[in-house]
């Protein structure tokens, strides 16, 4: 059996080696695929903080993903059309600067998570799953029918946004940015899991009554976890929109929420590198199976099913030979 640490190191090595090879072999599309993996991984790491540490089965993380996407779309489209974002009470212009867009994505997703969390955390278990799903659907239908920012057509940006000192249109440079973000959120996740907050949060998942009995507030810990989680997924949304130079309500759909969750479970819940492995395998399957058959989703379904039924804590769990982290 391989240790989980070895598996993690292998994943990290792949994230560096594959794009490096692709750059050398002049296979820019492989870099694009790898960028997709890394961005999905950021989104899934975000969800894993709520799901793995806090036990919050949110089936509405597409809200944050989409919100991040729209943060990019709205700001960049205003900059692209030279129309101000708002004129009153103060003049605000759009921007094509990635750092500003990221900050906006993070803040707006965090705010949304506060609002959703305050309501949704009144419920638990399956009700929580459903109420987060409902918030997702609300956002989705709103985005589809609200005409100001393209409705179902979405928003298209002609040129990728800019980052000081880089040419983001070159695939490997944009990949580097995304990989750096993945490193940051993985680091954050690892530290969070070992911190005081992480201790309270994981205890709140297992024994909320105990957390209360020692005078701490389990619900507030979960709320904060949801906010951090939403902010990270929102950031991933902004990156994803920039990768595609496009944002649409599809990013807010419940299938998107389902996919982010699939990344996490496929790789292994509450495992640091689980979401990364999950996103990688999903994109790879989509790409390979899609090349073999029109009915590739049938095979994807079967593979997913087999992985869940084997019940060994996702792919990282299988490889490192340790069962589910919590039962």
């Amino acid at each position, binding site marked *: 059996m391989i240790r989980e640490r070895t598996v993690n190191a292998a994943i990290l090595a792949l994230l560096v080696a594959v794009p490096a090879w692709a750059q050398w072999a002049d296979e820019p599309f492989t870099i694009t695929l790898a960028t997709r993996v890394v961005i999905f991984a950021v989104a899934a790491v975000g969800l894993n903080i709520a*799901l793995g540490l806090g036990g919050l*089965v949110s*089936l509405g993380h597409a809200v944050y993903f989409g919100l991040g996407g729209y943060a990019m779309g709205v700001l960049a489209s205003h900059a692209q059309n030279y129309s101000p974002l708002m004129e009153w009470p103060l003049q605000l212009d759009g921007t094509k600067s990635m750092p500003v867009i990221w900050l906006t994505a993070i803040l707006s997703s965090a705010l949304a998570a506060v609002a959703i969390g305050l*309501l*949704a955390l*009144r*419920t*638990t*278990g*399956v*009700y929580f*799953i*459903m*109420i987060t*799903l*409902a*918030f997702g*659907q*609300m956002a989705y*239908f*709103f985005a*589809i*029918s*609200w*005409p100001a920012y393209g409705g179902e057509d979405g928003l298209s940006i002609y040129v990728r946004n800019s980052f000081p000192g880089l040419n983001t249109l070159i695939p490997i440079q944009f990949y580097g940015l995304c990989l750096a973000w993945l490193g940051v959120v993985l680091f954050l996740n690892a530290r969070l899991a070992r911190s005081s907050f992480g201790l309270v949060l994981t205890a709140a998942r297992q024994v909320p009554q105990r957390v209360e009995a020692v005078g701490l507030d389990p619900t507030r810990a979960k709320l904060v976890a949801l906010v951090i989680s939403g902010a990270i997924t929102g950031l991933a949304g902004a990156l994803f929109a920039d990768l595609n130079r496009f944002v649409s309500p599809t990013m807010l759909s*419940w299938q998107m929420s*389902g996919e982010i*969750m*699939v990344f996490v*479970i*496929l790789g292994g*819940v509450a495992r640091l590198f689980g979401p990364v492995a999950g996103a990688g395998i999903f994109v790879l399957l989509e790409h390979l199976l899609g090349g073999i058959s029109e*009915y*590739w*989703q*049938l095979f*994807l*379904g*079967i593979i*997913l*099913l087999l992985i*869940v*039924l084997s*019940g060994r804590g996702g792919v990282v769990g299988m490889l490192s030979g340790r069962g589910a982290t919590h*039962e």
Partner: protein
Amino acid sequence: MSAILIVEQVLNGLQSGVMLFLMAAGLTLIFGVMGLINLAHGSLYMVGAFAAAAVAGATGSFVLALGAALVAAALAGGIVELVVIRRLYGRDHLDQVLATFALILIFSEGTRWLFGSFPLYLDIPDWLAGPVTLPGGIQYPLYRLALIVVGLVIAAGLGLLISRTRIGIQIRAGENDREMIAALGVDISRLYTLVFALGAGLAGLAGALVGAIQSVQVGMGEPVLISAFVVIVIGGIGSIKGALVGALMVGLTDTLGGIFLPELFKLFTDPAKATATGSAFASMAIYVLMAAVLVWRPTGLFGARA
């Protein structure tokens, strides 16, 4: 807006609510008895519609088609329970969500593989076609009226089944205490398969009944699935009564919201804009309703446990 129109719209809301109930009843039973979240319930709805369309095409009989829908969906449900679902009872909700998400993919693509990408044809039988005139001069499609009646009859039947029969007692016992009913010597795995097949059959029947007035195509189940989830969450998971009340609330909210919200917005803004904005809010109405109910009662209207 005339009174006739309002009555007609209320009937429409009832009709869509009653059909939602058929979906929601199975979902809520399956969750109540087995503690399972079944995202693939919408696929069983689709299976029913496709089975009905295939049989109606071959035999020309609508009644046979409905029978086929019921049987095919129940059978599909039974098989899925035996092969997959059974392994998920002890798992947490997360595994259930992923596994049944995978089942959606398998069902959808499998159906497309069998029947192709083009929508199928299933129509109302001649003896139920066309409108009838109700007291007060309301013209209303006979078929929709029949749907309301069929739905209410099934709701009543289900109520009797749960409250009066042996199997109903076992189901209720299963909701309260799983170990207990195993201790009583009930074959629990048979009971589970039976409940799952019953829920699947109801979903399939709903698919066929609704398929006759909608399009029978791959993916038709998912929007209904989400509405059905909204229903059982509002009603309280595990409660058949809750499912009925929730389904009617959702049906009426959806139907009436779509009509009155744009009218409401016309009071504030110009008609074209009001229509678009009103419709936008109307499409969110049932989710707002659900969020409001959950904030007020975190376990739904008739939900017992957290």
